[in-house]
């Protein structure tokens, strides 16, 4: 009896070893890429755009060839609830439990900055398509991004307010509890005061995430005599701020940032937002070539024009796949492969993205142009001006 038991145990153990070996053999033919995106929470449309873009990519290219071997692509979408702590948890889980080769996301700087730390600590390549805060990639060799930075966007906005809107005094209203608005508000202030002298930003009003009433802040701005208000906020807050401004009798221009272009801004804001300007990554109206092909396919699939998040996610994914191909072959040892992908990413030259060509700097940031668009009377984002880094 006892011999039988020992035999059974040995048999089971052997069976298990073989099963695991079989699973491992299967796993070797798949490349997993994780998505750390907000499917619920304060910015669900950002997550939806990212997911749409990724699924469209997967449908088009479900397999990739690396070093003469064909792999199945697998995407794992995980919800970071638009919270910093959940983004950290999601990244950790994707890396340690799911064994992903690389991560796309998080999109917003508030989540990308802390999640970038996790990716870098675990030596896993990560590309944030949409995070413009410098801290996301700073001193993190494993972290890249697909867009321009706020130290560039801030001066673009300040120059635009000066040249095109002939503003001499500016006001800013921003969420102090989120990395992106806070950083950009400060870069704008520095740039504007650099042009017009200290004190030319006459009102620098802040609030905290989740606030709905901006009437008190707008009253301060009204009384400050500003010529323009800079609002570096997301699509869910912009309508409330713009409404508060109009109710206080504000008739001067309002200037936004690249966060305006995402989600359902026009659906929520409607007529209130028409006639205002914002800086962004690309203008869908009037696009050409590859960009147009992407826009057309996306529109046909999902019934809406892709926002900048969708376009940048497409490019970030393209970069990640290109880097994996450039490694010239994967070893199967996930840790070594991650490092290989990171090295390949860092050396990519002139990647032809639909939002512009990309070559990474030593910090993992691409040099890209910004586009200023005007929201026209039809509610479309109309190309107004393009500004490139010198």
């Amino acid at each position: 009896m006892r011999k039988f038991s020992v035999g059974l145990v040995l048999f089971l153990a052997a069976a298990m070893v073989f099963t695991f070996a079989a699973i491992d053999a299967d796993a070797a033919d798949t490349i997993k890429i994780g998505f750390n995106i907000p499917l619920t929470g304060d910015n669900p449309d950002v997550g939806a755009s990212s997911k749409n873009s990724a699924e469209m990519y997967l449908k088009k290219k479900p397999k990739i060839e690396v070093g003469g071997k064909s792999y199945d692509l697998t995407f794992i979408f995980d919800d970071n609830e638009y919270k910093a702590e959940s983004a950290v948890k999601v990244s950790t889980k994707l890396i340690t439990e799911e064994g992903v080769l690389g991560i796309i996301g998080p999109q917003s700087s508030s989540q990308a900055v802390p999640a970038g730390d996790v990716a870098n600590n675990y030596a896993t390549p990560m590309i944030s398509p949409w995070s413009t805060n410098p801290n996301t990639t700073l001193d993190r060799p494993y972290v890249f991004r697909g867009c321009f930075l706020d130290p560039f966007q801030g001066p673009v906005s300040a120059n635009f307010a000066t040249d095109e809107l002939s503003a001499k005094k500016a006001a800013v209203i921003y969420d102090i509890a989120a990395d992106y608005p806070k950083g950009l508000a400060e870069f704008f202030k520095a740039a504007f005061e650099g042009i017009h002298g200290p004190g030319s930003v006459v009102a620098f009003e802040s609030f905290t995430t989740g606030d709905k009433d901006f009437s008190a802040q707008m009253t301060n701005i009204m009384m400050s005599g500003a010529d323009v208000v800079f609002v570096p906020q997301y699509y869910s807050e912009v309508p409330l701020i713009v409404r508060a401004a109009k109710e206080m009798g504000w008739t001067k221009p309002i200037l936004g940032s690249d966060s305006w272009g995402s989600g359902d801004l026009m659906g929520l804001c409607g007529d209130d937002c028409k006639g205002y300007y914002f800086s962004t990554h690309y203008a869908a109206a009037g696009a050409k070539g590859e960009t147009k092909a992407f826009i057309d396919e996306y529109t046909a699939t999902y019934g809406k024009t892709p926002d900048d998040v969708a376009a940048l996610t497409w490019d970030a994914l393209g970069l990640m796949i290109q880097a994996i191909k450039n490694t010239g072959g994967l070893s199967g040892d996930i840790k070594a492969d991650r490092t290989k992908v990171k090295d390949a990413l860092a050396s990519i030259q002139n990647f032809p993205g639909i939002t512009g060509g990309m070559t990474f700097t030593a910090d993992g940031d691409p040099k890209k142009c910004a586009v200023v668009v005007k929201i026209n009377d039809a509610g479309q984002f109309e190309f107004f001006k393009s500004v490139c880094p010198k």
Partner: protein
Amino acid sequence: MTLNFLMQNLINALQWGSFYALIALGYSMVYSILMLFNFAHGDIFMVGAYIGLGVALGLLSLFGTGAAAILPGWLLLVLTILISMFLTAFVGIIVERVGYRPLREAPRASAAITGLMIGIILETSNILFLGGSRLKFPQLIQSVTYNIGGVYVTNKKIMIVLVSIGLMLALHQLISHTKWGMAMRAMAYDYVVVPLVGVPMNTIAAMTFAIGSALAAAAGILFGLAYPVLDPYMGVSFGWKAFVAAILGGRGSIMGACIAGFMLGFIEIMTVPAIQIMNRLFSLNIGSNLRDLIAYSIVLVILIFRPHGLFGQAYSAKLRL
């Protein structure tokens, strides 16, 4: 700091405070009758806003929009408010029946926790059914901004404040001049003995929830008109703050809840200009984001000196409506 500036903020505060006041009423009424705080009340405000959205969109599709409209906007608004109040009252009744009635003999903590759970259930069902995206509340009436000597007032602001005060007066009439109101007051006085003399406790409790929820629904629709972006979690912080107003007014005091609601709105709004003045006078650099910290510290100080709230009574067993 001009008079205009003060007046402008006063008007902002009136609008902001009326939401707190309407929601705080629901907390206070339930507390007086059943001696428990319905922590799902903030989420019933959210549900009311979404029901209002559904009703408004339904009415708009029935009666047309813009130039093709059959009925004027204000009539649609009145209909939206009334229908939504009616529908949300049923949500309140269901919450009472399912969540609170089975726990009436249970420890108070169980009932409070149930309230929190119902709140989470309402939020997550919203995400499940509507997908969690922000929704825009339709603007049933055209927004008009008046400039009265440098102070900007919109027709909506005036309407919101008037409708809120009207609803509060209607509630006052109901409580002090009807038989149901008398039953509610009696129950608030002593909910152990009063049912023994034939007052139907369950009916009164259900009615209290219904009225509180209807008021929250009205607040939700007015909120949608002023701040047209709805999200599933909009009731959470509102619920907390209205709860603070109910405590500040004195647990179970209806008048206290109204006054404290407006007061809370006033403190919150006025903190921003006050910070600005402080910054100028003492050349500091404090941001407006410290609004809640300062506003709620003031509330804390008030409560230290008046622990039973502004209109509360020390004998918790003898609360009056």
